[in-house]
């Protein structure tokens, strides 16, 4: 399976990679058979030991999350696959859905078996209608082959896999908003606790996992936790998909181990910056992650290293910006996104995001004053930690990151009353 040294993308380049035949030819669904021969507790323990951390952004240990689901059977349990991938910069799950849906389905079935779920929902963002049709075809194929539905692989295990299409809201990627959405409600995050593992979909214990997280699971089953834990730095293990975009010669999704250097990713995988221009800044893991300066990119791409550096690993999808990029404008675009996507239920996020966006636009268009920068930073403080869900934080962090890391550039906008990089108009 590892012909090109890849795990998650081992077959994604092959013709027909999305079909059951190609998937099976390369060992597909063998992991499911292995899993079904074990007890759920054994599987959870294996995943725990592998060190797998959620690829949806928060990096929560997957085995631990599964372990939170009550063992009692008085209520049905659900597994939700989070395929809402909507953060600017992130596009790695999309590749798996389009090119290797069976890998995701197999991981989903193993996860469902481990937590005792007989029904799994794949929540796909509405814009991925094409990918959704591919996944649906894969589910149909799998059902026809006895891999989905009743008595899977004649083991007695039963699991339905159902696609639920979102309607175009980033917030529905937040796990409790995703649950509300599947229930047919407005996509608004819930108050926590209770956490979904206890009270989730339809009031029942529920696990929400990212697409890539689940895609890792079959490999752990087949090759053992030791193999997985041996890849990448301590506590940040396994193979990883990196979605590289922005000012690089070869943007795209690349597979590399956790802990690869950001510079290597940009220079070797992405082929460097066009025209050999210098890197001015990198948003390392999706729009919610604070920007790094060009001189900070000799950093290990993993959860802990980026947190230590004052940023976040997020979904591991760097956006590279060269020296022609206006950082105020980048900040404004980011803030505008979050303001647009805020669900609007809680005060600090609803009001604060719009305010940040206005201030940033004011500065970018040369109308800013120095005190606007102070107000901007204090607004980020006033949002952070005071909201229902992490979208508020996700909006505050990058704004603060841009304003602090590129303070001089902000001040230059204010002093010169214009965008020094020639931006400042709507287009």
């Amino acid at each position: 399976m590892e012909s090109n040294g890849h795990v998650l993308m081992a077959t994604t380049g092959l013709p027909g990679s999305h079909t059951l035949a190609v998937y099976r030819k390369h060992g597909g669904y063998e992991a499911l058979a292995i899993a079904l021969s074990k007890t759920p507790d054994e599987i959870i323990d294996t995943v725990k030991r592998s060190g797998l951390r959620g690829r949806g952004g928060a990096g929560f240990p997957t085995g631990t999350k599964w372990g939170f689901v009550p063992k009692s059977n008085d209520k049905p349990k659900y597994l939700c696959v989070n395929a809402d991938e909507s953060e600017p910069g992130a596009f790695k799950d999309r590749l798996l859905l389009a090119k290797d849906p069976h890998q995701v389905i197999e991981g989903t079935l193993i996860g469902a078996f481990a937590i005792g779920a007989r029904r799994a929902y794949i929540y796909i963002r509405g814009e991925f209608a094409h990918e959704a049709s591919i996944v649906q075809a894969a589910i149909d194929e799998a059902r026809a082959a006895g891999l989905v539905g009743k008595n899977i692989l004649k083991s007695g295990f039963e699991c339905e896999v159902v696609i639920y299409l979102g309607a175009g809201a980033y917030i529905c990627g937040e796990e409790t908003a995703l649950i509300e959405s599947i229930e047919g409600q407005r996509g608004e995050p819930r108050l926590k606790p209770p956490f979904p593992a206890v009270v989730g979909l339809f009031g029942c214990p529920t696990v929400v996992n990212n697409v890539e997280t689940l895609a890792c699971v079959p490999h752990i089953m087949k090759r053992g936790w030791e193999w997985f834990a041996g890849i990448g730095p301590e506590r940040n293990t396994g193979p990883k998909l990196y979605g590289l975009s922005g000012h690089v010669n070869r943007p795209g999704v690349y597979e590399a181990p956790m802990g690869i250097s950001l510079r290597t990713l940009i220079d070797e995988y992405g082929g460097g910056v066009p025209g050999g221009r210098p890197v001015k800044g990198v948003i390392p893991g999706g729009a919610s992650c604070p920007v790094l300066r060009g001189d900070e990119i000799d950093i290990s791409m993993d959860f802990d290293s980026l947190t230590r550096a004052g940023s976040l690993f997020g979904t591991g999808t760097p956006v590279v910006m060269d020296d022609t990029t206006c950082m105020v404008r980048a900040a404004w675009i980011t803030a505008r996104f979050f303001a647009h996507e805020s669900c609007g239920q809680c005060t600090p996020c609803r009001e604060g995001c719009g305010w940040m966006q206005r201030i940033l636009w004011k500065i970018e268009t040369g109308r800013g004053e120095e005190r606007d920068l102070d107000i901007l930073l204090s607004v980020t403080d006033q949002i952070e930690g005071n909201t229902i869900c992490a979208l508020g934080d996700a909006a505050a962090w990058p704004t603060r990151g841009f304003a602090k890391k590129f303070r001089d550039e902000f001040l230059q906008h204010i002093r010169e009353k214009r965008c020094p990089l020639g931006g400042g108009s709507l287009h």
Partner: protein
Amino acid sequence: MAVVKLQVDGREVVVEKGTNLIEAGKKVGVFVPSFCYHPGLPVVGVCRICLCEIEGRPKLVAGCATPVEEGMKVITQSANVREARKAVMEFLLIHHPLDCPMCDKGGECTLQDYTMMMGPAHTRFTFEKQTWPEEDVGGKLILNKNRCILCLRCVNLCKTVAGQDEIAVLSRGEETYIGTVAGRKIENEMAGNIADICPVGALTSKDFRFRSRPWELKPVGSVCTLCSKGCNTKVWYHPRRNEVVRITARENMDVNQWWICDRGRGAFWGIHDPNRLLQPTRRQGDATAPTTWGQAIPAIAESLRAIVERHGPSAVGVVASGELTNEECYLARSIFRDGLGLANVDVVERPQPPVVYPKFTIEGDRNPNTRGARAIGLAPGPRGLGVADMIRAAAEGSIHALVFLRGGPLEQFGDPQAVARALGRLELLVVMDPMPSPVSGRAHWVLPGVSFAEREGTYTNSQGRVQRAPRVFTLRGDTREDWRILQDLGRSLGVWMHVDAGPQQIFQRLAAANPAFAGLDYTVLGDLGAPLAAASADVAVG
């Protein structure tokens, strides 16, 4: 009941498991601000003004959404908490129009109060504010979205109490707004409560808008008299104008929780109905003329006596009503049944279908005190006639005099034409009522009683709970409280010789005489009422 012990700002407090931090704080006098939290609605935790610190936890928590835990140490006064609250206040005000001087909520607005208490004095928001036009959303409510803080109380009230989704949250982000869906209007009869619980001036009552400032008013705890539920209310009296300008809900967990229906909320219009009867009148032939109490009462007493003497007590009937207070019922019973020995005494009942909402029922009996009237024995005595038979007897000529203690439409007694003919045959028709009606229009004597707000009294609701409604004010005019009219008549008839100062004393007599009311007095009733003696199955004495 499991209890939990914790500390709030260093003060020890023991509360029921599941209590939230706001309620726990209340118990020891620690104030935690709140906009969206309402004890009668689901916890949504959206406004974030209630953020509190818990020792050992890195993040602030929403006090409304956090249940107490054993040994928890809650801090509501740290720098972090103050900063967070200030932040929320600032955020809520950035698009707010700050139009307190022309906003109806002024004086009873949580946002205004909190701004004075902890809000920023200046705004740092220099951008154009979002604005929205005002809108009639039905339910006698006007929506001003500029002032809305999206606490969702209105949406959740309609959803959970009334079971309706006429009003909803729409759009998202800072464009989020509250609105009716697809051109609908709010139609449920609980909607008026929204004006009570909207913490700002976003949804205000059409009936109250621009009529006065709350600080000009005197709120008086009262009881609604529009159905047998007996919701607790506040009657808001404007002393300068001598006018009741609104009625709002008053919490009583045993009766109406926090809510009242829109009929009860609108009851003050009836008090000031321009058609109110304001003077006793006497009809002779086709001529109706004003008279005085001093002429009317002795004259009525004399006529009644004369008819009883000539035709016997069965020639007289009394048609009472569940609108009378317990005291008035007791007087009526004492005077007419016990005193004059009449057996033809009854109460009109006109049940309608109840209006049932998920968390509130408007009772089918649209009178406040039918149960009290029955418990007191306002019912036919031995061989006595009920209401319908009395009318029939009047038509046949065997009843010569009828006393109506409240009138009303003729249909409630049968075929209106037949009833009119029957009433027309009477030698004596007396009606006591604050409002004119087809019955009083045919009366020889009309005695203008007063509305619930102008007289003191108690009512027994359908659950058998006795509740007090004090006198709020007196309307100009020559009206008289119903209990006074009855007492005066009783004295003139020589059958009620007590000179009681007021309903409180009459209630004492009732409680002493009637086992159902045994043990009750004003102290026991307090502000929230008390049930009839448990053992009593409301057996009428008599």
